[in-house]
């Protein structure tokens, strides 16, 4: 009998620590962390309104302050006939990038690499790179290649100052040199990695290293395939596959129990469907059988249902929950530590969130002017420009299926929004409103 009681006593805390149902998450009253419960209900109305108008299928939103979750709500549908749950699993896509940056910074702290190291030190294909310069129209040859003034460094990959591109932005920023490089990417079988190509990430990265850069390293800020290269760099430096490294060094220590690069079959039922929205009430569940966007920006929601594969994109492949991602961001907000487990030093997090990595450039992609880019995410640097919410020092990034996180160190506040809706461009207004609701709930 005593043995049974002992066993029960041992098992009870373990069972209770698994957030398998909504009630298991440890939450506090908003007032206890300086948030207004009444004002947070504005968030309910905001999301429910978007769901009712069929602009989005559903969403999960979390607001935490001073290390405690004060608001955590699921609304709408995760899939046809399936309500959104707080433990629904999402394709976080580009929100993989801060995790990849963290893996690199852990190797940096272990003395395995320096941010000033040339990438070519670890991936020889990056040696002697050239920059493509478009020749004037009518010239005998359309471009010329000039040697890099200095090699691409690991810091450039973290801050997107390498001159590597994403193909899909060719439509957004039309430019002859960009177009020529994108054509070369296509010819060499380089993709943006969202569609999980049938090859190892290292094979893609090696080909990418042999192609011309768009600009001199350090002289540009251009959102590109940098984190994918970093993911492969983790493999080269650590000797482990990228997914295994992240699982052992980040997911497990932070107890991110629902975060993966390939989902185990038993968790597939928790994966949200992707919805295609015209933002005017036309909402359709996207097919899992074929890409919803074919072309350069290849988006295929069904790829996330693969239980195994070779492609491990440090810029795009992660699947996670709002709660798991909260644990990751809380670690960053705490200066590299969560629940007694330290992944990074405070000084390293300070380095990642410093605003001087991209010089005079602004990180004008997800945000506008007034935002810089650190070593994995954008950082608000001033209030002189048009900004709806947040404080100077707030760092954020988003995912192309409509996921977003925001960490406000000054207010010790984290906001995470996750939906699975395409296209991406419509969501800026909704995200901004979510962040306004989160900020305006501060009541101390």
């Amino acid at each position, binding site marked *: 009998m005593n043995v049974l009681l002992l066993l029960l006593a041992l098992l009870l805390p373990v069972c209770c620590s698994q957030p398998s149902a909504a009630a298991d998450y440890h939450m506090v009253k908003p007032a206890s962390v300086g948030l207004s419960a009444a004002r947070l209900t504005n968030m309910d109305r905001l999301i429910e309104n978007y769901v009712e108008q069929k602009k989005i299928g559903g969403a999960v939103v979390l607001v935490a302050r001073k290390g405690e979750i004060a608001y955590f709500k699921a609304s709408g549908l995760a899939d046809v006939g399936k309500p959104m749950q707080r433990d629904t699993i999402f394709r976080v896509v580009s929100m993989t990038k801060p995790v990849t940056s963290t893996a690199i910074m852990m190797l940096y702290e272990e003395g395995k690499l320096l941010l*000033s190291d*040339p990438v070519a030190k670890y991936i020889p294909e990056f040696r*002697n790179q050239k920059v493509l310069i478009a020749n004037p129209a009518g010239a005998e040859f359309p471009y010329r290649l000039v*040697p890099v003034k200095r090699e691409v460094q690991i810091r450039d990959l973290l801050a997107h100052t390498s001159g590597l591109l994403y193909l899909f932005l060719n439509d957004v920023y039309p430019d002859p040199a960009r177009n020529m490089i994108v054509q*070369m990417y296509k*010819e060499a079988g380089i993709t943006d990695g969202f569609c999980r190509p*049938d090859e190892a990430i290292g094979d893609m990265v090696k080909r990418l290293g042999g192609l*011309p850069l768009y600009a001199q390293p350090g002289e540009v800020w251009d959102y590109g395939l940098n984190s994918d290269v970093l993911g492969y760099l983790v493999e080269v430096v650590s000797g482990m596959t990228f997914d295994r490294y992240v699982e052992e060094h980040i997911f497990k220590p932070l107890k991110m129990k629902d975060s993966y690069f390939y989902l185990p079959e038993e968790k597939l039922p928790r994966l949200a469907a992707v919805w295609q929205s015209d933002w005017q009430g036309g909402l359709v569940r996207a097919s899992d059988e074929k890409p919803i966007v074919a072309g350069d920006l290849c988006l295929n929601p069904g790829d996330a249902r693969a239980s195994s594969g070779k492609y491990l994109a440090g810029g795009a492949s992660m699947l996670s929950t709002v709660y798991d991602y909260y644990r990751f961001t809380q670690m960053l907000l705490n200066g590299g530590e969560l629940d007694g487990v330290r992944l990074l030093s405070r000084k390293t997090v300070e380095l990642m969130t410093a605003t001087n990595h991209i010089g005079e450039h602004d990180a004008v992609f997800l945000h506008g002017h007034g935002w810089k880019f650190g070593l994995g995410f954008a950082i608000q640097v001033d209030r002189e420009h048009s900004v709806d919410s947040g404080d100077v020092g707030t760092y954020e990034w988003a995912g192309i299926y409509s996921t977003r996180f925001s960490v406000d160190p000054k207010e010790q506040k984290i906001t995470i929004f996750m939906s699975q809706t395409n296209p991406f461009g419509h969501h800026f207004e909704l995200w901004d409103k979510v962040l306004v609701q989160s900020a305006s709930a501060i009541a101390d």
Partner: protein
Amino acid sequence: MKRTQMMLLPLLLSFVLLAPVASATGPRVTTTLFSAHENEIHTVDFPPYVSTDVVDGGSVSEIVRTALMAAGIDADLSIHPLKRMVNYYLLQENALAVMGRHLHFSDVQRKALIIIPVMVMEEQYIYYKPQHPDGLNLDSDHLKQLVYGSHQDEDVSRFTAAGCTVKYGNTMSLLKQLRRGDVDFIEVPPLTIEWLLDRYMADEKEQFVSLPDVVDNEVLYMIFNRKHAAGEDAAARFKQALAAMVKDGRYGTILDKYLGAEHGKLYLRRLESFSAGQGL
């Protein structure tokens, strides 16, 4: 000088002389950035013959490097993912030489080039069995309904003349197009197919079928540039060194290392009977 000072001097000197060179922690660059190599040779990735993924760069890389060394030519060999980059370096930057196949040049361009065959390879037609479960018939009636998957700059005149549609891609993308049914057949050296399938599509290797007949001889060339100051002299010395390697058995030994003795001898025989420029 006191005795202790005399004893310390050699010790201090040994520290200075034997200590490792201090390394800076700031940004660093390769020395080649400051001393650009004047003799650049460019080629395109073509596994298993030329590839950074193969030991020593593959058989052709090793043959070329050995011949260059024997000829006293100090050159830097770069392997690129795209053929158009190889053409760029040859024609726009007047590189010393390039190495490759399916490199087409205009008559004017050819006058400035010295073309030396390095290796001759068999090519076979490959198709994807699930798309053609009863086999692939390439007689004139069937060809009209088929799509041929071609590499850029490959000579496809015989297919277009037969009424075939042609789609383009690199070898890996052509294999994927075969699998999707976008193209019906391609022409590739069997060793390349085997290497790529083992590496990328091992589970489906048996589904890619070669037609038994050898359809073509594909030649890998070294192409020297007369517009480079050392081009003509280097070409003459390279040709001589390559011939000597064939004669004294070094060429065969390298082929044996990569391809096995049987295959190696086959490649060697063909090279001996091959005239420069054929098929280019």
